[in-house]
């Protein structure tokens, strides 16, 4: 099986699996909105304050929500042994993994991007800012998906749990957070968000190019 076919295979399979467990996916999205709702409750619902902190909060909520969905990526296959089969299969493992992570992003990352305007409205963000927020999430969630995939593969089958995954992934995700939330602030300050978006775009490309190989390596390491 060549790389393209392998990607398509992994994508189709994992999307089908996600469709079957729609509840799991919906929970991640509900979590995102729940976290964003917590902040006004914990602070004060002052419109000016909320509007100011909205990009940062939306981004942190997206980070946490993407962490939450990560165990789904490999846990199911690992439990029933099919992950090991994939590692031994003829098809290139990086491609198979790419298909899986792409499906994971479509099922959990993309909906976050689409839900972001809701969070924006919760915080009274102006339309232009919402637009930039959505753009940064569109570019940033793939990076988060790959960072998370590497973390999930490294911790396969360990008792570390979600906390360990968060500990490993969040520090690495700091640049994404800084440039993602910073883009909105920067455009509000009249400096434009191009630089931020370009950097996020570069990050997305790099993660898509190197992610599959590092993740495949991490999967193999977990099976030795």
């Amino acid at each position: 099986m060549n790389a393209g076919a392998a990607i398509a295979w992994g994508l189709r399979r994992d999307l089908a699996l996600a469709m079957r467990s729609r509840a799991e996916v919906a929970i991640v999205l509900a979590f995102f909105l729940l976290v964003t709702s917590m902040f006004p409750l914990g602070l004060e619902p002052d419109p000016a304050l909320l509007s100011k902190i909205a990009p940062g909060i939306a981004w942190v909520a997206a980070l946490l929500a993407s962490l939450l969905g990560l165990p789904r990526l490999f846990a199911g296959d690992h439990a029933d042994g099919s992950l090991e089969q994939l590692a031994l299969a003829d098809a290139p493992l990086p491609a198979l993994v790419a298909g899986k992570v792409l499906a994971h992003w479509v099922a959990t990352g993309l909906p976050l991007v689409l839900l972001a305007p809701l969070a924006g409205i919760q915080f009274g963000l102006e339309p232009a800012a919402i637009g930039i927020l959505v753009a940064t999430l569109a570019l940033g969630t793939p990076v988060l998906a790959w960072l998370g995939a590497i973390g999930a593969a490294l911790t396969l089958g360990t008792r570390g749990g979600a906390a360990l995954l968060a500990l490993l992934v969040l520090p690495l995700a700091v640049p994404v957070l800084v440039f993602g939330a910073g883009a909105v602030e920067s455009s509000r300050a009249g400096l434009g968000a191009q630089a931020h978006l370009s950097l996020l775009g570069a990050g997305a490309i790099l993660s898509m190019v190197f992610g599959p190989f590092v993740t495949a390596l991490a999967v193999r390491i977990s099976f030795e």
Partner: protein
Amino acid sequence: MAGSGFFRFSSPASFYPLAGRLVPVFGWLAAALTVAGLYIGFAVAPTDFQQGEAYRIIFIHVPAAWMAMFTYLVIAGWSAASFVWNTRLSAMMAQALAPTGAMFAFISLWSGAFWGRPTWGTYWVWDARLTSTLILLFLYIGLMALRATIEDPRRADRACAVLALVGSVNVPIIYFSVQWWNTLHQGASVSLTAAPKMAETMLAGMLVMGLAAWAYTIAAALHRVRSIILEREAHARWTRELVR
């Protein structure tokens, strides 16, 4: 491989005695450099015009920050070596360095806080270097947590190596992004990097203490790796012979 030139010491068994001889060398070197550095720092370097005696914290804050950063890169180097040459010892060295690196990261943050309070008014300041060092500390903790969670030592070696390499690629990106973030918010925060103008003696003191920290790290890591070797090579003949 054992026996040929460069790789002569790549087996834990042959490295163990070598490390044993080196530990006291680097240990005493560290002690001597520390005495020299503290002498320069307290007896030679003048009082700072603006910050008074408080600035003397710089003689441990900056060297600690340097060592935390440098040690992480060395861990990444050993991790890369463990992949390239598939040597257990390279991975053991990476394992041995992490706790000391984390310690220096913590000391850098702690001393930074106590330097910041009298100088800038608050214990914590979100300047680029302190924030990057905080994230570096989390990277260290992640490495050690992953090592502790994975039971099989060889799997732990390789997993931590991947994490260290991914982390080291990220470190400059993290530093750059935090710098960017910090300059955007210039008005809201102050920078600890706007340190007092360096008198030559102050710089000399920092450098000597930096060398002291380097020597100490080597001594601690070599001592730790000897224990790691004993733990992990427990099945081997030569380790049993040691305790007879």
